[in-house]
């Protein structure tokens, strides 16, 4: 009897251990060897499947994308020019509803008349009811500098001769104004042109002026840049770290594998003093990425002194970092480059702005007619808030 029982147990265990699912083999998209459009599609699809960070909230059914487009790509040939154009449109349709507003897909071949890279957020922006073209940088460098800033103001150009930092006090007011066209501030402050370093030093000194009524950060048209600039800029205004939100990234290749939320903080910089006056951030529909994170960080400024004025922003608040470090984010395939966020971001109220943008506290649409007269209604509204 015992002998039969033991045999039965062994047989049962053997059968049961075979009941688990098989582990799929996942290759690193960056190391794929691609000899066909079919393989190129698989690489792109899988890279997105494992590394896209917004699957928990994105409306795209990525499995349905696989089923629909796999056979379509299988019919394409890498060595036919017209098939590259077809692939471009397939990619456009596959990615049209991705909420990651950093997402851009650069392909080897772009059909005539089409954007050089596919950006669902750009297409969304074009459909906005309040769409307008971006303000030229000369508007900040010349018009604002001349019309709105006092005599003791400074402006600078970078090494290529492009407009860079502008700083000064609003005309007849003690409201400090700083224009940042992009976020490479630390680099600019350390290794920029003499004029750029002069403007930065002017700003750092001016924010310590006890007579200052407040600060306006003009981030309109600023598409973002280096994350370290957040503390480099706002850290000048504080003496203690503060939390303005949290980020998380992928913990594994599963679409819903996430790390815990890690606090996002602004850290004080050496020699900083607490700035206890209101801070207003000016944003528009082209304020993206670091500009948006700066706006959120200002809204969370200690003492509730931060306000955001202008238009709803671009909607790219997920930071971009190294894929090796964060298991998510940009990757290459053999025939394309995929740029996308590596993190989700949420503010202190646990709100996510990805694909939606940050709504201003004081909404002021751009007024094209006023701009033609060199009147900046958004800046004027920001100045009004200090009264």
């Amino acid at each position, binding site marked *: 009897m015992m002998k039969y*029982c033991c045999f039965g147990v062994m047989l*049962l265990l053997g059968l*049961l251990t075979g009941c688990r699912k098989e582990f799929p083999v996942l290759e690193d998209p960056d190391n794929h060897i691609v000899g066909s459009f079919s393989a190129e599609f698989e690489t792109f699809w899988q890279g997105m*499947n494992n590394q896209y960070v917004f699957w928990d909230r994105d409306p795209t059914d990525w499995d349905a994308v696989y089923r629909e487009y796999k056979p379509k790509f299988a019919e394409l040939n890498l060595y036919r020019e017209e098939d590259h154009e077809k692939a471009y449109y397939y990619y456009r349709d596959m990615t049209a509803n991705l909420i990651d507003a950093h997402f851009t897909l650069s392909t080897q071949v772009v059909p005539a008349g089409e954007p050089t890279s596919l950006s669902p957020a750009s297409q969304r922006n074009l459909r906005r009811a309040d769409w307008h073209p971006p303000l030229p940088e000369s508007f900040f460098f010349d018009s604002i500098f001349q019309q709105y800033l006092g005599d003791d103001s400074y402006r600078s150009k970078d090494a290529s001769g492009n407009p860079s930092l502008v700083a000064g006090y609003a005309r007849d007011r003690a409201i400090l104004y700083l224009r940042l066209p992009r976020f490479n501030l630390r680099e600019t402050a350390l290794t920029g042109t003499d004029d750029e370093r002069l403007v930065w030093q002017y700003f750092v000194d001016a924010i310590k002026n006890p007579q200052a009524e407040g600060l306006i950060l003009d981030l309109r048209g600023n598409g973002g840049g280096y994350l370290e600039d957040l503390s480099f800029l706002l850290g000048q205004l504080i003496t203690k770290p503060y939390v303005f939100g949290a980020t998380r990234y992928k913990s594994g290749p599963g679409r819903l594998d996430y790390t815990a939320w890690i606090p996002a903080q602004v850290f004080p910089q050496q020699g900083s003093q607490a700035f206890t006056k209101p801070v207003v951030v000016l944003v528009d529909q082209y304020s993206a990425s670091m500009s948006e994170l700066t706006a959120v960080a200002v809204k969370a400024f200690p003492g509730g002194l931060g306000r955001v004025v202008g238009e709803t922003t671009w909607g790219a608040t997920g930071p971009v970092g190294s894929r090796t470090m964060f298991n998510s984010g940009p990757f290459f395939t053999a025939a394309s480059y995929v740029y996308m966020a590596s993190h989700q971001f949420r503010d202190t109220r646990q709100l996510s702005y990805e694909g939606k943008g940050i709504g201003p506290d004081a909404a002021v649409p751009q007024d094209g007619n006023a701009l033609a007269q060199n009147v900046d209604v958004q800046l004027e509204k920001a100045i009004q808030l200090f009264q």
Partner: protein
Amino acid sequence: MSKLALSLLCVVLAAAPGYSQWQIGLQGGVARNQLSTETAYFTYTRYLPQTGLHIGVPVRYAIADWAAIRTGAELTEKNYRQERTGFFDGLYQNTRNRYLTLPLGVEFSFGVKRWKGYCGFGGYAAYWTDSRIQGRGVSVFASPEDQPSDGDQYTSISQLAPVSAFRENYVFDRRKDRRFEAGWTTSAGVRYAFPACQVFLEAQYRYSLTDQQKNYMLLQIPRYNQTILLTTGVLFHLSASH
């Protein structure tokens, strides 16, 4: 397969007609759990087993001097650790998963007088009641002042970015988390019989057959629990008939 299990159960039930004894008791011990999964091409990452607690109320129905049916209610922690390695050393997440478990199995005894050895096998069903995570993660928002100066080498992620500790309840995701678990179990142990009770020391191996995740995506990497239990306990005799 189920026919085979049923046949074995019938053999046991038919083993000794007229002999029955109910026993109920308490048990406690430790559970060493390993998450069986893969990190695919995600670098500097590994999973390690962790130890948790295991408590239960075992119920044993002896149908012969050498055969019994075992069941009960148990609370088992099936923990694991995911950690980053090398340059990312210091980043980790400990996950404590608690399962309410209902095992059902047969047990075969051997030995003489008061000391007996036994082995058993069976299955279990479990419900993932709660989960808690604790660890250290890195923020993408580094302060420039925390970073090495130009020309300085750095050897650890903590030199590049702020590392924060976290400790929180894990919020289940209905789309992903499968909270029902089932699998098979084998056990071996020894027990010593007193007139009114018996004490035992046993080891169990539990092998989950259900993925910890629902089938929510193509090319999904499964996650299975594999647990070794080391427990001790006491069983009290409730009734007997010979």
